């Protein structure tokens, strides 16, 4: 062959053409990304995080402990938060970037076409303008300087450190971080916890059902008898005792279109605290676990900051400089979601680019934004604003449907200042001062210092008045008539909040003996309406059961008890339903006997080695489907409209939703549950209940997903791991005021897949174990030193 010049020439040409063809073909991008040594995906892997950094704010030292928690020490706060910015970026830059892009409607610029719809929604909601208003509220304050120092620290890393793998993979560089980006992260938290189109969904439901059915399915308070503040809760109780519809043409299709971008509905949390009166040490203890989305890397980042007489350790969201939940040497604190209604909807009489407001035609304030799309066609979206907030439009059934949206987070808010002040609080008084600035999100704040337990609902809650009467925000209001609008609210500006629920009138307790919250209604009789949607109360009920029992037995509470309660897997739903299942046993086939026997002997604990837990888990889903599925399908209402768990487990046996025969529904659900189990080949609950905590790109690169471990609990147990484990306890904290604190996150501190700390806490988290939350700088461990720049 080699002797034939023609064939040599042809072969030579083929070799060249092969290379040229690959370089010019669509596959070239993939080769550019994945090639060994030169591939874009690997470039960040050839560098390490620089461990000697110059700082314009002075010296600081970071020492990572065994779990990669940074201990930041500095003489000044600016130096410390510069270092915090640097370590946040070193460990979580891609996560930070995704959040700011999501909220700003710029995600498609990084990830392409699939994010376009999300970007259009987030642009229309003008979250960046809300963040800018908060930046304006913060401007000139001491906290603003610290956020700027933090921002500079992030940008130092962006300039000097290796890019996270995900940036290399997607082929884009991180843009500089800004103060507004930090406040966008705050917007994401607030929107995630209070952004809801529930009001619109309720209005749809009101249209779908007769008044009596609607009331009993959606409006009756759950009769579990365990609100956060109970009749026998001791201490000084506040915010209790009363002071004083329709869809308005909004199309149900618009509700569904907007609800696509609603935050996940399963966000909840637990915390409880016991005063020194009932503890073995004589000092209060706090236990806390917020239930948020479980993802890789986790939503929380743990850090300790030591500056002068401030020594604070806890968790924050990457992008926010200060410890949001945690502990200092004077106290410990955490937040659970209140479920307050801080979003309203309005319709307007419109004429082209104008809308009618109190008899006057006003132009919409409009801005055209370009949604940039990686490897796709850019889009334009018109952002419209009214006096109340934003005006969101969607094409539904070939018609333009629109609704005005007002949300407290659209104003300038001061929660960043409040969070900073938590770190410096020296007791309940300081903390109480700080939470008055916690404008968003509305939360159940629980704090313990060395003397007492303090609970308070925080956040700005609007008071709506129609014809002089206070009304809940459970309907769409007439925006053109200025109906029920919020006094003192300035969207995308600075609010005076004068028409909002006064701090003193929000529910709270000072000096309680013990108190627990789990997103149930705060009180039975609030001074002002707070919200319409609270958790079913299964967790809240169980927490109070365990606390009541322990304290009634005069058995002093200690850290072990608090841990055991945080690990409690008893499912109250099972306790309420299993007797009825067993009663209906004669309706079921003999094949189900082993499973029914297991249920009969069961202690209702959702634990990995339990057969009964497995069959109940499958049964419950089938029972929901059996009860609501056909009726709601007939009304063209999807699963998100189904009533909550408490309604299901307390529905009378002869209810029409059971076609008058609950036993039949129970039997059918059990048969279906066993079919599911046999089809999947499961034996015990742990075969099904496994961690499935995934990375954003886990669908493309499975290795980025966290490993699967068996775990316990359910969405209704105190040990909280939701169906599919996509949500659950995102941070567990035990803080005795006189003893060693503990914490754990579902994953690891480092967002880099290549780090040993990517998922090093996950297995212990799945097993309900903890790691120390110590207040000592480790003697050994990786360090980063920040050297102050000299002029």
């Amino acid at each position: 062959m080699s002797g034939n010049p023609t064939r040599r020439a042809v072969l030579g040409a083929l070799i060249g053409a092969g290379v040229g063809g690959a370089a010019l073909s669509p596959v070239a991008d993939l080769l550019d990304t994945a090639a060994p040594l030169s591939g874009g995906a690997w470039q960040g892997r050839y560098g390490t995080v620089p461990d000697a950094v110059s700082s314009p704010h002075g010296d600081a030292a970071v020492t990572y402990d065994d779990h990669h928690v940074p201990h930041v020490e500095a003489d000044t706060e600016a130096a410390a938060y510069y270092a915090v910015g640097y370590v946040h970026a070193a460990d979580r830059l891609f996560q930070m970037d995704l959040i700011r892009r999501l909220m700003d409607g710029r995600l498609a610029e990084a990830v392409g076409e699939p994010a376009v719809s999300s970007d259009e929604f987030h642009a229309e909601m003008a979250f960046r303008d809300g963040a800018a208003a908060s930046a304006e509220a913060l401007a000139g304050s001491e906290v603003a300087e610290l956020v700027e120092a933090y921002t500079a620290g992030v940008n130092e890393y962006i300039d000097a450190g290796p890019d996270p793998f995900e940036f290399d993979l997607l082929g884009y560089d991180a843009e500089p971080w800004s103060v507004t980006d930090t406040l966008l992260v705050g917007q994401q938290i607030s929107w995630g916890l209070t952004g809801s189109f529930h009001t619109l969904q309720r209005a749809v439901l009101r249209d779908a059902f007769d008044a009596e059915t609607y009331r009993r399915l959606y409006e009756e308070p759950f009769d579990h008898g365990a609100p956060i503040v109970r009749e026998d809760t001791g201490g000084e109780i506040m915010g209790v005792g009363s002071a004083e519809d329709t869809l308005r043409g909004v199309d149900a299709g618009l509700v569904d279109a907007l609800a696509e971008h609603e935050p996940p509905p399963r966000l909840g949390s637990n915390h409880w605290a016991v005063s020194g009166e009932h503890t073995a040490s004589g000092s209060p203890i706090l236990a806390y676990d917020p239930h948020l989305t479980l993802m890789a890397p986790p939503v929380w980042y743990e850090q300790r900051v030591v500056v002068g007489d401030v020594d604070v350790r806890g968790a924050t969201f990457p992008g926010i400089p200060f410890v949001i939940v945690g502990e200092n040497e004077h106290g410990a604190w955490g937040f659970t979601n209140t479920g307050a209604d801080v979003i309203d909807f309005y319709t307007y009489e419109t004429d082209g680019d104008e809308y009618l407001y109190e008899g006057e035609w006003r132009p919409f304030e409009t801005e055209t934004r370009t949604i940039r799309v990686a490897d796709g066609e850019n889009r334009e979206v018109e952002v419209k604003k009214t006096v109340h907030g934003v005006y969101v439009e969607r094409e539904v059934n070939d018609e333009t449907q629109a609704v005005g949206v007002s949300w407290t987070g659209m104003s300038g808010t001061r929660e960043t200042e409040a969070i900073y002040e938590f770190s410096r609080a020296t007791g309940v008084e300081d903390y109480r001062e700080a939470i008055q600035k916690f404008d968003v999100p509305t939360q159940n704040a629980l704090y313990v210092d060395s003397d007492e337990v303090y609970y308070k609902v925080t956040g700005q809650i609007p008071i709506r008045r129609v014809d002089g009467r206070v009304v809940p925000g459970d309907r769409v209001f007439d925006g053109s008539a200025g109906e029920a609008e919020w006094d003192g609210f300035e969207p995308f500006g600075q609010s005076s909040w004068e028409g909002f629920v006064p701090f003193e009138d929000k529910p709270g307790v000072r000096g309680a003996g013990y108190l627990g919250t789990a997103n149930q209604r705060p009180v039975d009789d609030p001074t002002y309406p707070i919200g319409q949607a609270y958790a079913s109360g299964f967790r809240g009920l169980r927490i109070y059961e365990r606390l009541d029992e322990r304290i009634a037995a005069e058995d002093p509470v200690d850290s072990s008890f608090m841990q055991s309660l945080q690990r409690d897997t008893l499912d109250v739903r099972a306790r309420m339903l299993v007797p009825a299942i067993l009663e209906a046993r004669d309706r079921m086939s003999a094949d189900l006997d082993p499973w029914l026997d297991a249920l009969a002997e069961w202690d209702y604990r959702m634990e990995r080695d339990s057969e009964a837990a497995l069959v109940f888990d499958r049964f419950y889903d089938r029972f929901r489907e059996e009860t609501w599925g056909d009726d709601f399908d007939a009304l063209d209402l999807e699963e998100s409209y189904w009533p909550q768990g408490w309604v299901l487990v307390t529905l009378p046996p002869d209810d029409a939703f059971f076609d008058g025969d609950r036993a039949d529904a129970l039997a059918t659900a059990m048969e279906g549950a066993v079919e599911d189990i046999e089809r999947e080949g499961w034996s015990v609950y742990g075969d099904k209940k496994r961690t499935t905590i995934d990375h954003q790109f886990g669908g493309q690169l499975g290795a980025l997903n966290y490993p699967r471990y068996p775990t316990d609990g359910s969405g209704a147990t105190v040990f909280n791991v939701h169906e599919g484990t996509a949500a659950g306890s995102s941070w567990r904290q035990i803080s005795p005021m006189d003893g060693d604190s503990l914490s754990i996150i579902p994953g690891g501190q480092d967002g880099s897949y290549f780090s040993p700390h990517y998922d090093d806490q996950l297995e212990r988290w799945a097993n309900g174990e903890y790691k120390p939350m110590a207040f000592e700088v480790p003697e050994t461990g990786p360090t980063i030193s920040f050297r102050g720049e000299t002029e």
Partner: protein
Amino acid sequence: MSEATPAEETTAGFRWTPEWLTEARSRPYRRRSLLVAALVAGVLLAWLHWVGLVLGGALVGLASRTLPRAVVGALVLGLLVLGTHVVASPTMGVGEFLALRPLTYVTLGLAVVGPVWGALVRAVV
């Protein structure tokens, strides 16, 4: 494939292979030196661009005595590049790298196909 001979190198009066290369290939020490240099150059070229893998393979091929040996040499270059790729990263272990499927299929495939494709030049020169 048979080994190339000086007669073949000058078929039809056109010298496909420079004389110095023909001579270098025939002397074991010089051939090995050229091969080592080609492997080093190949790794360096691969660091610049994936086309460097092909060029590196071509250099290895040119320094090889026969086409089969060129292909083997190219495979060695691919392994060297992969080894360097993992060793050069202070944070990436072999297991972590290999687990990144399907991305690593492209990386591994390119490390093999690129140099071998280049080494085919031995059949020309």
